[in-house]
Structures are given as C-alpha cells and as structure tokens.
C-alpha cells in the first residue's frame, strides 16, 4: 500500500504522467458506467437479436424508482446502511416487470416482423417511457442521493463525509469502485449463466436459430421474456449507479448514456459480454482523453471517429465473433 502511495507521489512531481494517470482513472469511472449499461444492451441483442433502444429509458425509470423508494424509507439507525440496497432491489423488481411488460406488449407481436419494424417500435417505446416519466415525475431535476459515502468522525470530533479513496494526491471515488466491481460480477455471472445453465443454453439456442430451438422443445417466447427480464433488471442497477456517479435525474437522463453505451457495446462487439465491458471502459477513457488533450467540444466526434476506424478494421467489434452467414 505504501509502495503505491510513494509511486503515485513520485508521479505527482512528474506532472504529465500524473495527469495521464488521473485522466485514466476518470475515464475508467465514466467508462464503468457505460460498461454496465452496455451489458444490458449486448445481452438483449445477443439473445433476441434486436436493438432495445428503450434500454436507456428503463435505466431512467430504475433511477426514479430508486430515488423515491430511498426517499420514502425511514430505517432506524444501523439499518439505514441497507436503505440503498433495498432501494436498488425495489428498482430491480419494478424494472424487471416493466421490461417483461414492454416485451409482451410491444415486441412479442412483432416477432415475425422485419427487424426494422422492431427497431422503430423500440424507439417508440423509448419516447413513450420518457414522456410518461415527464407526466409522472415532472421535469424539474432531482438530485440523486449519494449512496456510496461513508461518514466517519475525525480527531476534532467532526463528522467527515468520505466520498473517495485517496492514493497520495489521486482520488478514486467509491462510486467508481462499486461500479467496476458490480460490472465485473455481472459480467462473470452472465458469462456463467449463458454458458453453463440450462436456461442459458436455451438462450444461446434461440439466438442461433429460433425455429430449430422450438423444434428441440425450447419455449422461445419464455426464453426471450427471461432475457428481457434480466436485461431490465440490470438496467435498474445501472440506473442507480449512473445516478450515483452523476446525480442529476431528469426524464432524459438515460437517453444520452444509453446511446453512448450502445456505441460501447458495438465497439466491444455487440453480443459479446466481455466485449461490452471492455468497450465501455475504452469508450470512457477515450472520451476523457479526447476532452483533456484535444477539445471538449470535439470529444464526441473524436470518440465516434475512433469507433469508425475500429469497425473498418474489425467489423464485428473488438471481441465480436465472426459468424459466417449462409446465403
């Protein structure tokens, strides 16, 4: 530990290198949020082969549910620590139900329709959720509570609020650490789930060939519903983490990060679970680098330019599998 601090401090005097390290940390903290959203995108795309553009808005709904349940809970003293966890659980439940309902009402009837129709429907659902949120919760911005802060008492007897870990003069906020850990856990769990369990196998079968899977006795509709349930549950967690990191909650909160995360998923190879994680982190770091070293105004353009170059060289994304299509 001391070694790390010394190392960091030696960098501090270096200036440029310290700056670089600082930007990488900020990039990872932004990227981890993209990564966790991208996991949901890639999950649904990988199995159901459709782009669920409403994912970003499910995230927003999750964040609102979290905000209100957390605000409504009055837990006594020591139990108060559990309040964020309970709020996130409530959001997961609501979003899972919401996801399944959306799938049943909007996507299931279009299962045989061309994918373009499904895409447009997804955009419609996205607008519907945004405007419903506008009516339900009004558009005045809400400040999301900080879930990941610790209060301790210093020598002078004052209560100090800790929001970050200090490594020498570098600071990493707790939210970032929690987000990355959550991200890795979810990634590992998803990989295990789709690879090892019976339901997971059914999902992969559906993803390869729906008709053949059905002939093998797999309930395709139930499998796709389950995919949406998992994807939306993840969205709720992502919403809570997104808003803990950037605590501004309005009905359009999910749309911009949603688009960026979709980009991250494509970047990493859409359909690939580790790819989403990698893509998210890289996108975050790229964005911060572009802001810091090129221009804040051009940062998005730079990020997308890199994306185009990557896709030109490797059309399936960084970790995407090349699947030969039979004509």
């Amino acid at each position, binding site marked *: 530990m001391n070694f790390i601090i010394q190392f960091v401090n030696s960098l501090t005097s270096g200036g440029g290198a310290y700056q670089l390290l600082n930007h990488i940390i900020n990039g990872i903290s*932004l990227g981890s949020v993209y990564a966790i959203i991208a996991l949901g995108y890639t999950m649904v795309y990988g199995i159901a082969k459709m782009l669920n553009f409403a994912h970003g808005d499910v995230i927003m709904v999750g964040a609102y549910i979290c905000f209100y349940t957390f605000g409504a809970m009055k837990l006594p003293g020591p139990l108060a620590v559990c309040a964020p966890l309970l709020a996130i659980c409530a959001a997961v439940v609501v979003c899972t139900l919401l996801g399944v309902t959306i799938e049943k009402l909007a996507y299931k*009837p279009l299962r045989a329709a061309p994918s373009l129709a499904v895409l447009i429907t997804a955009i*419609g659902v996205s607008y*519907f959720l945004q405007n419903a949120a506008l*009516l339900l919760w009004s558009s005045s911005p809400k*400040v999301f*509570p900080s879930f990941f802060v610790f209060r301790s008492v210093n020598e002078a007897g004052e209560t100090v609020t800790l929001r970050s870990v200090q490594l020498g003069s570098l600071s990493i906020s707790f939210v970032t650490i929690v987000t990355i850990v959550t991200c890795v856990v979810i990634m590992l769990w998803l990989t295990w789930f789709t690879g090892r369990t019976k339901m997971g196998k059914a999902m992969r079968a559906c993803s390869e060939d729906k008709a053949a899977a059905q002939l093998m006795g797999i309930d395709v509709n139930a499998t796709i519903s389950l995919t949406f349930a998992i994807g939306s549950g993840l969205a709720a967690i992502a919403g809570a983490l997104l808003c803990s990191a950037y605590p501004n909650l309005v009905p359009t909160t999910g749309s911009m990060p949603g688009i960026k995360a979709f980009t991250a998923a494509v970047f990493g190879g859409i359909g690939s679970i580790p790819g989403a994680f990698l893509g998210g982190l890289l996108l975050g770091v790229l964005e911060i680098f572009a802001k810091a070293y090129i221009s*804040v105004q051009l*940062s998005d353009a730079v990020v997308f330019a890199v994306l185009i170059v990557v896709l030109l060289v490797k059309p399936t994304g960084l970790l995407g599998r090349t699947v030969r299509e039979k004509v």
Partner: protein
Amino acid sequence: MKKKLLCVLLALSMLFVLAACNGGGAPEPADDGTDTEANTPGNSAEPATPDDSATPATPDDSAAPEDGQAELSGETTPEPDTTHAPTPTNNTTPAPVEDAFKLGGTGPLTGGAAIYGNAAKNGAQIAVDEINASDSAVKFELRYEDDAHDAEKAVNAYNSLKDWGMQISLGSVTSKPAEATSAESFADSIFSLTPSASSPATIAGKDNVFQMCFTDPNQGTASAEYIGTQNLGSRIAVIWKSDDVYSKGIRDTFLEEADAQGLQVVSDTTFSDGNATDFSVQLNDAKNNEADLVFLPMYYEPASLILAQASAMGYAPKWFGVDGMDGILTMQGFDASLAEGVMLLTPFNADSTDEKTAAFVAEYEKRFGEKPNQFAADAYDCVYAYCQALTAANATSDMDAATINGLMKEQFTTMTFYGLTGTESGLTWDASGAVSKSPKGMVITNGAYVGMD
C-alpha cells in the same frame, strides 16, 4: 383480433406521447400538481382570499401614485380573480377582471429551468393580485405560457398569448427564448419588459424591449470587480457553457474585467449540452493549475453536478456563481452542504429587513411555501413598474397594443421606479432598454442565502 387490439393500444399510446410532447408537459394538471415540488406546496390549500391580497398594502404607495386616476374601475370586485389566480396548473387562466390590461409572459414552467419560470410567474401573480385588490386605476389580467426554455416553443407560446389579446408583455424569463420572443414583440409593436432575460441581444436593436435585470456583460464585470476588490482569490478558473449565450456573455466580460483587476485566470474550460454530466476534466484542469476560486457563469443544474463532483474528488476551492445559480437550494434532494460557502451575485436579498421586501417574502412564503428568489422579485417589480407607467401615462385598457407601446416607451425612458430589487436611488432605464441596477453579493450559509455586505 389480438393484433387489432394491439394496434389500437399503440395508437393510443402514441397519441398520449404526442400530447405530452406538444403541450411541453402542460397537460394533466392533476399529475403535474402533485409533483412540481419547486413551486406548488401550499398552493391548493391557499385560495388566496381577497383580504389576503389586500393586507400587504405597503408596496402600493410606491407604484400607484395618487394621481386621481381612480374613476375607471374603482368598483371592480377583485374576488373572482383572486380566488382563481394562484392555481397550481401551468396555464393560469384567471377569470377576467373588468377593464384589465392583458399582461402576458412566457417562461420555463417545466424543464430544467422550471424553477425560474415558476418563480417569475408566482412573483408576478402576487403583484397582480395586490394591485387588483388595491384602489389602483390600473388592473391586470396575467397569463403565463410555458416555453420550456426553448426558443421555438417560446415563439409558439408568444403567439398563443397574442391570440389571447395580450396588450403588454413580460417577455420571456430566460435569455435563449427571450431573444426569439423579443424579436416578435418588436415586430408586433407590443411593449415588453422582461424580468430576467439578461442577454444583451434580448434588447439590442429593439426600442420597445426593456429589462428589469442587469445584463450579462454587467454581471461578468461586476463579478470580477467584486472578486478583485474583496480579495476573494487570485488564481481563477472559469468553467462555462459554450452553447449558451448567457454563459458566454458573462464569461467574456468577466475575462476582460479580471485582467483590469489583476486577477490571474489560470484555467478556462467549457462544456456543452451533450457532455454536461462529467466535469472531471474541467475540474482537474482547475485543480492542477491551483485555482483557488472557480467562477461558474451558468444555471444551477450543471452547477449542482460540478459541486458534487468536486467534492467527490476532494477539491474545495471558493465557488463564485452568478444569478443563474439562484435556485440551487430548492432542487429536490440537493445536499445543501455541497453549496456551503458558494458566493453569487444577485439583485435581490430575501433576508433584507426592508419593509417592502419583508412583506413580499412573507406573502410568497405563505402562498408557495418557499423563499422567493430574485426571479420572483424581478417579476413582481415588473408588474409594479407597469402599473406606475400605465397610471402615469393615463393609459386605459381599451387602447390597442401599439398605442400602449408608444406610451410605455416614453414612460420607461423618463420615469424612476422604486422596487424590491435595485438600490435606494431607484431604477431608471436608458433608451436601449437596459436598467440601472447593481448586483448584491450573497453567500450560501447553512443552506440559506445571506447578504455578504
């Protein structure tokens, strides 16, 4: 069969969405009323009985000089108006007052800047109710339309006010929409006095558009002057929003004056609408350049994120905001300790012991459950300034907008107005429409604004 049902369902939901879009969040007052926490508490329970609005009679003497003008509508009963006036819905549609001037305004009643729009609307409403309940010859009928801080929606809102028959205008509350609507009201010869749209372009080249607030350049200069003379910091960082005229205007003049004050601007970074969530790069730049004061010429929404992120990274410089920072404390869920010590310049101090201010603050708190900010005070002053000007010009409500326009231009460039905002010596306007007003320094202490001097 199932498919048909689904089609109907989808069509219905689309209609629902469209309605929500076009109305800018205006429909379903029942839904809205329950949740627009910034402005409605106590509204429904408070039908503002006539004797309520008659009690704070103090501000009247300034605005309605006893010119013997009372013959017009002395017997008009204020009851129907006042009971309807402070409805919690977005579109105020008060019952008509006989012989009243139709006074219209647009503002962000929903959206990111809703705190300003609602504050202005509420402040203006209090002034209108007071005037209508008094023996003033001039009566008003107020109507606010939502523009969601969007130039296009503002023009639509302005047009619907024109259809309603607006004779004089309160312009728009925020700068971006105001630049659009002021051009319209210049073209239509409808006199306009905006409470808070502070960009110079709002009034530039339009001889019938006046401001109640000081302009952006004025704010930038005043902020730099204040920081310089009070020795608040020597190494300054500026973070500003590059796609917002308000922010850019203040920043530009701030830099000019900072030079003159010998302040060293060590970091000058921007953000825009698309990337207004992550400020780590900007804050790191300020921190690494050892800025001891960060100047934030922006609205409260991004400012709240900046404060939270700076606190997360353990950066604690002095913060200095402008009038757009006003409202940060009323955001739902905002941790006021983050804003502790934030300084800002505003033209209005709700803690003032001044008699008129105290009466206004008490009335506002009673009706809306919170302290009024400067937007409310500016709008309140606007209505009283109109009342004074219309009375002095012997204007009557059957005159058309163009006639009133001429009279108002003459009055506003010659009169002196004493209001809640501004100094003891009163406010005057020059022919360009700019007001003579100086900002007051405020600091946020224990979750409340406290005057600095």
